[in-house]
């Protein structure tokens, strides 16, 4: 323990090359202008691969004791809740703006729906 984190250099070289390749892949996603679900799935996959290897190998998280791993890696999971709440909020703000702040040339779906109900 007093000698700290000492590992063979080959691990760092291979992770280094891997990070380069995966970064190349995520750049290629934009270069070839992939769109839609495929685009964001690939972006997220490459992002998590890179983040995972940096944390696990470069920051030595794999070799730390479980107490430290849990203390650092568990709290960020709660961010998922934060993201969820703010996604709902963003959606709500967008719909409210459409409803109340839109110029007359664009008729929102809800108003069209309301007119149909009155019509019948």
């Amino acid at each position, binding site marked *: 323990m007093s000698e700290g984190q000492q590992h063979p250099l080959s691990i*760092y070289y291979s992770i280094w090359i891997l990070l380069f390749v995966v970064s190349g892949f995520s750049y290629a996603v934009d270069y070839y202008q992939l769109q839609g679900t495929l685009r964001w799935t690939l972006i997220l996959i490459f992002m998590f691969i890179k983040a995972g290897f940096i944390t696990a190998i470069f920051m030595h998280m794999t070799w730390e*004791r*479980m*107490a430290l791993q849990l*203390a*650092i890696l568990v709290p960020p999971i709660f*961010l998922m809740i934060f993201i969820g709440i703010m996604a709902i909020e963003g*959606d709500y*703000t967008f719909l409210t703006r459409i409803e109340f702040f839109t110029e007359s040339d664009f008729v929102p779906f809800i108003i069209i729906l309301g007119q149909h109900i009155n019509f019948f």
Partner: protein
Amino acid sequence: MSDTSVAQTGEPLKEGLAGVVADYSADKTAFQVPWGKAMMWIFLLSDTFIFSCFLIAYMTVRMSAQDPWPLTSEVFSLSMGGQPIPLLLIAIMTFILITSSGTMAMAVNYGYRKDKKKTFYLMLATAILGASFVGMQVFEWTKLIVDEGVRPWGNPMGAAQFGSAFFMITGFHGLHVSAGVIYLLVVAFRVKNGFYERRGNDYGIVEVAGLYWHFVDLVWVFIFAFFYLW
């Protein structure tokens, strides 16, 4: 007195979940690492939440923007030989930061091997790469502000929120990189001058500095994915 690890009781440390319980219920030391490293990790955890706040705020304003969001691959394209290449500068910046992460990992490794000279030069290389990253960011900001007219309150390309999100997120990251360059240079020159050699020949501080630097790279991975590619 300074050795807080293994042998307060002389018993071998437990592994797995039993180890977690034993570590957290210990009288003095929960984390079996040097205090500098534990504190750096806790700082990085808090920094994770700050950057998350920025990125989540960006998500919220982008979702609620009525005007179309500017196309990042066009906004950040760079002309090479009269032909625009999307995100060229950002790609170069990404590769520079990964390279610097690699040299930093090497520096940590040579630090633990007590190789003063190699540690110093690798940390110096890391700092130079970091400084060139900041230089490219200055170029990028100048191009955006002067040529494209992006302001925190609006821009000619679309949603007004683009500017504020961009300046806040990349600005805060750039600040972290700049601080990291200074931090690395201080530690590097202390390594060279034998500061740590006189203090028990312990180069653990190089790993602590390395943790900060890798974190800066880690944040860039998320900014690259969410801001530039999404």
